[in-house]
C-alpha cells in the first residue's frame, strides 16, 4: 500500500513537472529550429557579430563600392535605378522569386546578373566571382535581422515541391539524401563536427575553410561532392529549387548575412 501511494505521488510530481516543462516550451521556444550560428563555437559567433572582425563585411564594403559604379553599355550603376541601399531592405529575405515576364525562379545572384545583362547591358558576372558575391553580400546585408519571408506566389509552388523532392532523394556513391543528415541526424556528430540543420540564414557566407565568401550554390556543391554525387552544373535550376525549399523551411528565421562558418 505504502509503495503504491509513493508510486502515485511520484506520478503526480512527474506529471506536474512535465506539464510545467511543456508550458515553458510553448511560451519560450516553440520554434526548435537552430541556425548554424548556434552550433558554432563562441569565438566564431563573436567574429560574425563584430562588423570589424567579420571578413564578410569586407565584401559588403566592396559591394557598396560596386553599387555606385557605372557599368556596361547603358553606363548605369545599380544606384542610378535603385537609389540607396535602403531600397534593398527585405529583398534577400524573399528571394528566390520569379522575375516579371519570366517562368522560372532566380536566386539573388541570378537576379543581380539579370539586372546586369538587361539593364546595364554588361556581361553577367561568372558564378562565385568576387564582384557577384560582393553585390549579393551588400544586398543581403540590408536584410540582416529580418525574418525570412518567401513570397506566396503560386507559380513558385511546383519549383519548391521539386526542391523538396531533391532534398529527399538519395544520390551519390554514399547513397545519402540531404534529409538523412540535415533532418534525421541534425545535431548529432559527423566526425567531430555537429551536423547543422541547414537553414540558409547567413548567405552569402564567409567560410573559413574557403578563405572567401561563397554562395548557397557553392555550399550545395560542397555537400553533393561530400556524398560523392556529381554536382549540378553551375547554371542548373536544381540549385534554385533547393534554395526555394530551404528558404520556405527556414521561414520566419532571422537573416544574419554575411554569416561566418567554420
Amino acid at each position, binding site marked *: 500500500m505504502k509503495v503504491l501511494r509513493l508510486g502515485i505521488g511520484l506520478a503526480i510530481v512527474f506529471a506536474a513537472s512535465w506539464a510545467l516543462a511543456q508550458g515553458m516550451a510553448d511560451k519560450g521556444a516553440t520554434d526548435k529550429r537552430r541556425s548554424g550560428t548556434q552550433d558554432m563555437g563562441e569565438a566564431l559567433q563573436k567574429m560574425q557579430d563584430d562588423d570589424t572582425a567579420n*571578413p564578410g*563585411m*569586407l565584401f559588403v*564594403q566592396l559591394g557598396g*563600392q560596386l553599387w555606385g559604379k557605372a557599368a556596361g553599355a547603358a553606363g548605369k550603376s545599380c544606384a542610378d535605378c535603385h537609389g540607396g541601399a535602403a531600397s534593398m531592405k527585405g529583398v534577400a529575405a524573399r528571394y528566390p522569386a520569379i522575375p516579371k515576364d519570366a517562368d522560372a525562379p532566380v536566386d539573388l545572384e541570378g537576379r543581380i546578373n539579370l539586372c546586369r545583362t538587361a539593364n546595364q547591358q554588361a556581361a553577367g558576372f561568372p558564378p562565385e566571382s568576387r564582384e557577384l558575391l560582393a553585390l549579393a553580400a551588400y544586398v543581403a546585408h540590408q536584410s540582416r535581422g529580418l525574418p525570412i519571408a518567401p513570397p506566396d506566389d503560386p507559380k513558385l509552388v511546383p519549383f519548391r515541391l521539386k526542391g523538396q523532392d531533391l532534398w529527399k532523394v538519395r544520390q551519390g556513391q554514399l547513397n545519402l539524401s540531404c534529409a538523412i543528415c540535415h533532418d534525421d541526424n541534425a545535431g548529432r556528430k559527423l566526425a567531430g563536427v555537429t551536423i547543422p540543420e541547414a537553414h540558409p540564414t547567413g548567405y552569402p557566407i564567409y567560410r573559413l575553410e574557403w578563405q572567401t565568401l561563397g554562395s548557397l550554390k557553392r555550399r550545395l556543391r560542397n555537400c553533393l561532392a561530400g556524398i560523392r554525387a556529381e554536382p549540378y552544373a553551375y547554371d542548373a535550376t536544381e540549385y534554385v529549387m533547393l534554395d526555394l525549399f530551404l528558404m520556405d523551411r527556414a521561414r520566419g528565421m532571422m537573416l544574419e548575412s554575411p554569416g561566418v562558418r567554420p
Partner: protein
Amino acid sequence: MANVLVNAPKTAKRGSVVEIKALILHPMETGFRPGPNGRIIPRNIIERFTATWNGTEIFDMEMSPAIAANPFVSFFAVASESGTVGLRWTGDEGFVVEERVAIAVE
C-alpha cells in the same frame, strides 16, 4: 579599390594601452597550387604589414603563405600622444594599401 576594416578607439587616456585591429581583403594565391595547365600559379600574398603612430613605427609583421587570405591583425600600443595611426600593407604584384585612423589622447 582597397577594402579595409579598422577597429581602433577614437579616444584614449594618456598612457593607457589601446588595441588596434585591422582586417584587409586580398585575393591570395599561395604559390603552391598548380593551375589548369599544370604549371604553378605564381604566388600572390601580402608580405608585410607595418603600423606607425605619428610616423614612428610601432608594429611590424612579416607574412607568409600559411597566413589567412584576408588577414586579421590585432596589436597593442601605448597611447602617448594624439595623432594618426598609419597602417600599410605591401605584397606581391605591387600590392600597396594604406589606411589612417586618428586617435585623440586626453
